[in-house]
């Protein structure tokens, strides 16, 4: 079956992006180190843990450790994705591939689309493979499969798409390392905003606010909480599926919608910016 004409260059460019990154020894080494680290976590499943003087059962331990590992892998994958994304355009330019591709009858949106797709696919494969290692280990230890673990992994892949698009856009406007740091900053500010919002809604904080009178102004943080890219919120939403907690309700889907909205906005800006970019 022949691919539609507009789609075929995108698929080809994404294939080249993916294979060129995998070709890098540093990528393979990083993947192997991560996989070994994840396998070592299996040791935690066998430990004896006490909480408030009560021993935890093996199943609880496995579920908690698996969930914790889920977050570590997801955050690690986001960092790796940002690191890989920041030099994609520059390397293509330096290697002459950008001018080679764009001197062919390929539109700029197809080139950018191929790059986004290739790097996103690579990051998702990286994260999904590591999550699969945990999924298999946990399933063997529990004697039961946790398919929700893999669903959660796929859901958190939208965060990776956000990182790819954001770093690509920023790397066109500033130096690569600054683009990386900016996206890192976006993630950290989102996490802090989430933390402050959660703190402000804790009983202790409510009591303190009540004592201090009505002068406390939380509106600013509320605005940041709702409008800032909610990477950590989307991550929490995805992980809420793990452990048989079930669908957490439509209210908690907001972070995912927020991230998708930002992907759309940043993606549009990226395509518009690259359309006017001078090719060297």
């Amino acid at each position: 079956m022949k691919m539609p004409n507009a789609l075929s260059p995108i698929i080809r460019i994404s294939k080249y992006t993916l294979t060129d990154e995998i070709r890098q020894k540093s990528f393979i080494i990083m993947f192997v180190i991560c996989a070994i680290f994840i396998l070592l976590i299996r040791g935690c499943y066998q430990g004896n843990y006490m909480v408030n003087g009560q021993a935890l059962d093996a199943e609880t331990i496995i579920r908690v450790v698996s969930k914790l590992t889920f977050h570590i892998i997801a955050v690690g994958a986001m960092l790796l994705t940002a690191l890989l994304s920041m030099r994609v355009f520059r390397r293509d330019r330096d290697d002459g591939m950008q001018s080679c591709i764009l001197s062919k009858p390929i539109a700029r949106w197809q080139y950018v689309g191929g790059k986004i797709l290739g790097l996103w696919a690579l990051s998702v494969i990286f994260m999904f493979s590591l999550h699969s290692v945990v999924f298999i280990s946990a399933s063997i230890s529990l004697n039961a499969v946790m398919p929700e673990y893999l669903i959660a992994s796929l859901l958190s892949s939208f965060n990776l798409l956000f990182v790819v698009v954001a770093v690509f856009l920023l790397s066109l406007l500033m130096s690569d390392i600054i683009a990386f740091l900016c996206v890192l900053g976006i993630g950290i500010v989102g996490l802090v905003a989430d933390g402050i919002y959660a703190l402000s809604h804790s009983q202790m904080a409510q009591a303190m606010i009540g004592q201090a009178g009505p002068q406390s102004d939380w509106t600013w943080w509320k605005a940041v909480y709702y409008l800032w890219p909610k990477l950590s919120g989307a991550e929490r939403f995805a992980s809420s599926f793990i452990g048989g907690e079930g669908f957490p309700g439509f209210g908690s889907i907001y972070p995912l919608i927020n991230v998708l909205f930002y992907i759309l906005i940043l993606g549009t800006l990226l395509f518009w910016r690259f359309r006017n970019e001078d090719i060297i």
Partner: protein
Amino acid sequence: MEGLPPHNAPYFSGAPSAGAGWILRCGIDITGRDKYTSRMIELNNATKQFGSLTAVDNVSFRVKAGEYFALLGPNGAGKTTIVKMLLDFTKPTSGSLSVNGLPSTNAESRKAIGYLAENCHIPPYLSGWQYLQRCAELLNLSRVDAMRQCGRIVELIGMQGREHTKVGTYSKGMIQRFGLGAALIGNPKLLILDEPTAGLDPIGIREIRELLESLKDQGMTIFLNSHLLSEVEKICDNAAIINNGRLLVKDAISALVKDNDTLEDVFVRLVKGQDENA
């Protein structure tokens, strides 16, 4: 070029008969309307400004199909900017450019173009063969066609036996040859070459010239950006000279070079004359 068959000898067997079209020495089919389209390249008052600097200033000229055209000028004259505008690598500030009858901003116009960049770069982790194959795939050629064309191109550029080694081990001249090979994939009607002999030794320069002459014989339109005036004089039909972004002259080489002058004399006289007037 080393390993090149003599002129007019087929580079590969199995070419269809003459009735099937002009399938030529390197598999280039120039049958169709483009052979007879008078304007392969057209610039209408093209201007490009980078801030306060005017790199190309209101330049207009046409290049006919089948012409061997040279764009000459000193460093920083605006030659590469014109090439980049033709390829839509940079947008003109004003004016318009078209290739094969289509606006240069239309990606389809690049179907007609084979492009060799100045200081050609190829990813060092690929082999020459993989690079050519990528170029063929990007043109949407079928796998069989891509393999066939890559094989012919490797022969044409005289790189048999080295095509599967990594580009990182190639010399500048070898990279340039693969760059030229990549430009020839897909049977382009127009070949845009930006300093194709840059960094090559005299033997390499001669080999590239012979290859370009053979392409000209096949009716391909060639747009050459070069500093090597003696080479241009030997092989080009027409030339334009630009300086400080302005078009000084565009004419047939035979009309430009008169009496005992060389193209170099004409070039120096025109460029210096404009500089002094400015």
